[in-house]
């Protein structure tokens, strides 16, 4: 049933491969991730620092009894934070059994992107290493960097495994 509905929506907008993304801000740049990867968006909770790990791991949080590690993409991508503390959010993503949160400066909106809106990465330069980016989306004059959260999060596990 659900599948049918989403297909119908797709047909209505004349683009069957479009995706919905959550747009957020890190420093001054705008990023987006596929909404299907997002489990929830929460306000910033008390973060417990974890010693002896890489710098971009901010710590762990208690998400209703589950311990969820928190990545700091600012540190990872070498960006400054900006904006009000009150606007900061944690986006919790889940892939299979692995859960992780990222801290963002502000969650902006949820939008639909068609295939044609997304450009491949080779042409663009960013501070993020290219394999963690799915593409760059151009939406009404804005540039959104579409992150591959799966690669980013799964990548963390192999880093630690070594």
């Amino acid at each position, binding site marked *: 049933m659900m599948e049918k509905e989403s297909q119908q929506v797709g047909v209505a907008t004349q683009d069957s491969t479009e995706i919905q993304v959550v747009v957020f801000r890190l420093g001054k740049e705008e990023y987006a991730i596929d909404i299907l990867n997002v489990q929830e968006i929460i306000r910033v909770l*008390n973060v*417990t*620092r*974890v*010693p*002896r*790990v890489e710098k971009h*791991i901010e*710590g*762990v*949080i*208690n998400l*209703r*009894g*589950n*311990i*969820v*590690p928190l990545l700091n993409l600012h540190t990872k991508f070498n960006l400054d934070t900006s904006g009000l503390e009150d606007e900061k959010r944690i986006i919790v993503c889940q892939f299979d*059994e*692995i*859960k*992780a949160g990222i801290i963002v400066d502000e969650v902006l909106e949820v939008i639909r992107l068609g295939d044609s809106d997304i450009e491949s990465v080779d042409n663009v330069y960013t501070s993020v290493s290219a394999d963690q980016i799915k593409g760059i989306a151009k939406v009404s004059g804005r540039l959104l960097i579409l992150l591959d959260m799966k690669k980013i*999060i799964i990548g*963390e*596990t192999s880093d*630690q*495994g070594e």
Partner: protein
Amino acid sequence: MAIDMSQYMDIFLEESKEHLNILNENLLELEKNAGNTSSLNEIFRAAHTLKGMASTMGFEDVADLTHHMENVLSALKEGILTVDSQVVDVLFQCFDRMQFMIDKLESLGASNLDNSDLINMLEDIQTGNFDPNIKKYSAVVEENHEPAEEKHVIGFDLNSFDITVIKEAIMAGNNIFYAHISVDKDCMMKAVRAFMVFKSIEEDGEIIKSVPHVQDLDEGKFDSDFELIFICTAGLEEISQRIKSISEITVTVTEFDDSMLTTVDKDVTSKKVIKNLEVAEESDAENKHAPKARKTVRVDIERLDMLMNLVGELVMHKGCLEQIGATTKIPQLNETIEQMDRISADLQSVVMIVRMVPIEQVFNRFPRMVRDLAKELNKEIDFIMEGKETELDRTVIDEIGDPLVHLLRNALDHGIELPENRIAAGKPGQGTLILSAQHEGNNVYIDVQDDGRGIDSEVILAKAIEKGLISSNEAQQLTDNEINRFIFAPGFSTSSQVTDISGRGVGLDVVKTKIESINGDISIETKPGQGTKFRIKLPLTLAIIQALMVSVKDEIYAIPLSSVNETSLINQSDIKVIQNQEVIILRGDVLPLYRLKHILNVPGEDIPQAQMYVVVVRKGDYQIGLVVDTLIGQQEIVIKSLGKILTGIPGIAGAIVAGDGNVRLIIDITTLF
């Protein structure tokens, strides 16, 4: 059909293992005491059930082998064959093969083994060709089969209550009957027929036992046969006439006597079929039923973990509520919180108990292992197991098997001497090996004790000096206990060292590491010529532990109490420096001193203090002082994993969710430094 069966695979495997266990235990019993008919009956029953289950599932190789075993067993039961070591050996081989097949089924989902070798052996035993020395077989091989009749018999699992009822009824002078009823295949309303039978018996009698259960009969959940045991004031003739008057059924009624208690339950095959049908009708395939006699439910361990997590959370939120109660001071609220406190404590202990399993699960495989090894080594061993019922958390049980195997093998191989040597040393030829488990406080102790040759501490010491583990000067100050601990040192004893303790220490470091990894401890007591005793101390559970909460600057950490020796308040002036390493002297011992703040890079400035708290922790055999800012107190904590991304951080064993909702990390002393 194939898909249908796969649903029952788990049940099949689980139950097969249970029956294999029974088989194993009773085979050992039978070997010790050849005249033990109850063991023989148990073996027969287990083999029979396995046969039934395997053929239901379509595993013909298992079914075929068990079928042949059954033939031999039934001949043994009827006294046509006698139990001797050759037969038992073959049965053991069959058991091994079955275990192999079941393992294969578990891993590959299929097994198509050619068991003709064993089957031939079994057939030879049956016909007497296996060993010409045995002469008692020849008479009636044919009678053993009776396959057609057996197929229709449903087994009784009489529990002790049923037996008591039956015995009482016999004593009271009532007639007890056993009835086998087959409903005609084309009967449309089986349940009604069953009901009519019940009705007719209950006119002046009472049904004690029915297989399948009355409820299932009522709902028509049975193939075509059912069996009843009932008390009745009417005579045999009268009652059988009365039942026979019901149409569409065939019935045989016989008088029930004690001997049937052991022989009635021959065939459990059809019972299994019915059970499977039952399960099929329930939508939840996970709803696994344990064998009927025990009223238990099998639950996936993951579900228990989930339950445990939820209880952990509940306890945590109760903590929050308590804090609110303390600040608001509303009497009614506080009363309610107190109640909740009690309930949640109960709940927690119940959940803990649910996760506990008897250590029997691990112990059960040892008698066979010891037997085989003893035979191989030509040693006579009296293997005694005590405290099989001791319960431990599932997680601990899973880890403890290998270390125990190692210790038992060691004891057999190197500890206990050959019979002739033992007799020469003035000891009985048969060596004694004791494996025991017992509770003590929050720990379980497992002892592996032999009365073998023991280990000479002089020899260990010489080896330790030779290996450079210690200088000969230091060696003079060691106690026997300290010396004995050397055999746990990595690579301490290898096969290349040919002495009377050679091999005694091989891999003991591995055992020690394994046991320490589950927060346990191992020690050894040994007297040359008298034997050796290994004592393993294990925590009851790994999920909930006692911990000391300490703070460093703004951060709070939990140190497992199992690694804490003591805490102490020291002065800055107590700290000495040796080779750039801070040390303190505590009751004559020199302990290295580390500051937790530095080790964990806790942010914040170093503020020199005149006095400081030291937690004395144990890392292996050494004591280390850890400087912390404050000691918060002792607390029971529920350990949570940090998840895949953060596994393997040195010094961090996991995390807890504290009463205030914050995450706190648990320090792992063994990997901290």
